[in-house]
């Protein structure tokens, strides 16, 4: 799919909790197809001290309205300034970038595991995977209740499970401590995950041990986002691959993680 640099109109910036915002961007022309796992590279001009663009996963697409949304979690200076943009502002975006997740077969039972800034692609998969809700389990982890975003709009799409480190919502602990994960992992045909590397590595290890298909979406730091700088590489079984163009989604069997 052809990538472009476009000035998009921010039509909504909604604060979801203390550090998560949903930004809705409006294109002038018809959107290209955008699948879960793909991302955009955003110029944050208001932060003049920031030089490079910042990548964000797609949260959702409304092709009819020519709109897509991003879930922006404040992690550093760039994301913080981006959350101060207001409806009516223009934002330069390079998109669509990267490859999406392998969509499940109609008989698959899938587990979507998200944490931190990795929640967005999991929610987008739950919407686009086309499976009946009983075959879709979404497991989201955060430090505390206030760090979870409201996912009620997605709840009809699957069974949602939560963990918090302090036990204030769902089960206490990390996603890998959740009962569904500990007791029912082998019942899943495909596991998809995005979030902090330690979380993804823990999931990859268990998926590999159980012989379950598992794809992870990596968030290596990028300069360009479209395959020219070779700064975002990940070691794979066939050498260095660019996370921005060969990924960000990788099957764990292609990675060289010590798991």
């Amino acid at each position, binding site marked *: 799919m052809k990538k472009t640099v476009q000035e998009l109109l921010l039509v909504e910036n909604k604060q979801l909790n203390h550090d998560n915002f949903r930004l809705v961007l409006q294109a002038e022309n018809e959107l290209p197809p955008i699948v879960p796992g793909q991302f955009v590279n955003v110029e944050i001009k208001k932060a003049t001290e920031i030089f490079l663009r910042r990548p964000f996963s797609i949260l959702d697409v409304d092709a009819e309205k020519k709109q897509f949304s991003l879930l922006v979690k404040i992690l550093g200076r760039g994301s913080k300034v981006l959350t101060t943009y207001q409806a009516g502002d223009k934002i330069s975006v*390079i998109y669509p970038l990267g490859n999406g997740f392998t969509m499940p077969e109609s008989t698959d039972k899938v587990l979507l595991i998200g944490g931190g800034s990795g929640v967005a692609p999991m929610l987008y998969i739950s919407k686009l995977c086309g499976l009946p809700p009983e075959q879709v389990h979404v497991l989201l982890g955060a430090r505390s209740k206030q760090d979870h975003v409201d996912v009620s709009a997605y709840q009809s799409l699957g069974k949602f499970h939560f963990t918090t480190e302090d036990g204030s919502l769902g089960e206490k602990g990390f996603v890998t401590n959740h009962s569904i994960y500990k007791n029912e992992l082998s019942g899943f045909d495909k596991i998809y995950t995005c979030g902090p590397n330690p979380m993804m590595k823990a999931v990859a290890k268990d998926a590999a041990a159980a012989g379950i298909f598992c794809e992870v979406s990596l968030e290596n730091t990028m300069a360009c986002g479209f395959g020219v700088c070779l700064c975002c590489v990940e070691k794979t079984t066939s050498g*260095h691959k660019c996370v921005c163009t060969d990924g960000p989604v990788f099957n764990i069997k292609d990675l060289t993680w010590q798991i």
Partner: protein
Amino acid sequence: MADLSVNIKDLLFKNPVLTASGTCGFGQEIADFVDLSKLGGVVMKGTTLKPREGNDYPRMAETPSGMLNAVGLQNKGVDNFIQNIYPTIKDVDSNFIVNVNGSTIEDYIALAEKINELDKIPAIELNISCPNVKEGGMAFGVSCASAQAVVKAVRAVYSKPMIVKLSPNVTNIAEIAKAVEDEGADSVSLVNTFLGMAVNAETRRPVLSTITGGLSGPAIKPIALRMVWQVAQAVKVPVVGMGGIMNATDAIEFLLAGATAVEVGTAIFIDPTIPLQIVDGINDYLERHNFSSVREIIGSLQM
């Protein structure tokens, strides 16, 4: 429309704007964004005799108005280039220039011999200034004697225009430029990246896997401009200027300081359409100042 064409020896560039090595892949990677035939030229990713995996991640650190990279010449080697990439670019109407790298003089010679056979590659950029490899690279570019030795050896086997890419990590860049001109370089391009470093105070570790890396972007522009000016004074061959060029005004400053052409690098990461915006911007500038050709402004700095 002003005449934007410039020459390096007998090689014609339709305009003086090229994309810099390591920032545009082999051209195809930016073809979604730019019509490559509208560029003066494309200097492709650094190529070596044998495939290279490059350095470990992390290879990049953002810095004020710039970035450090430590890619380390990751590429699939010259044979892969000839078999798989050359056929896809040879019919595009632009100057595709191979950026040639070696760990030894023999590597440079073998590579130049292979590239010399490719009809549609009109020139090479001999990179003696990569700061991110353990062997060769910048080591060749920091003394007159070693720079001369490489250029002399390659000149003996390469007959088309040879642009020698200089390192700014030297005391006197004009001396090196003169030394390679004496050995038959048809042009010099400068600057490659400045050796720099980034530290993460929280983890008390270097940011880059290689500890040091090459600094590029607007942060280096004033130094690059000064070096281009000094070199243009010192040599007779055309100078290709680069370092932090983000827009047409930046490019024009380099032309005024004596560059015959410019390369646009890191700016592509911010917006890959910038090189073509620069072509248009140079034309607008020339029309606004009533110049009929870009050649009238090259080195025309008023003192």
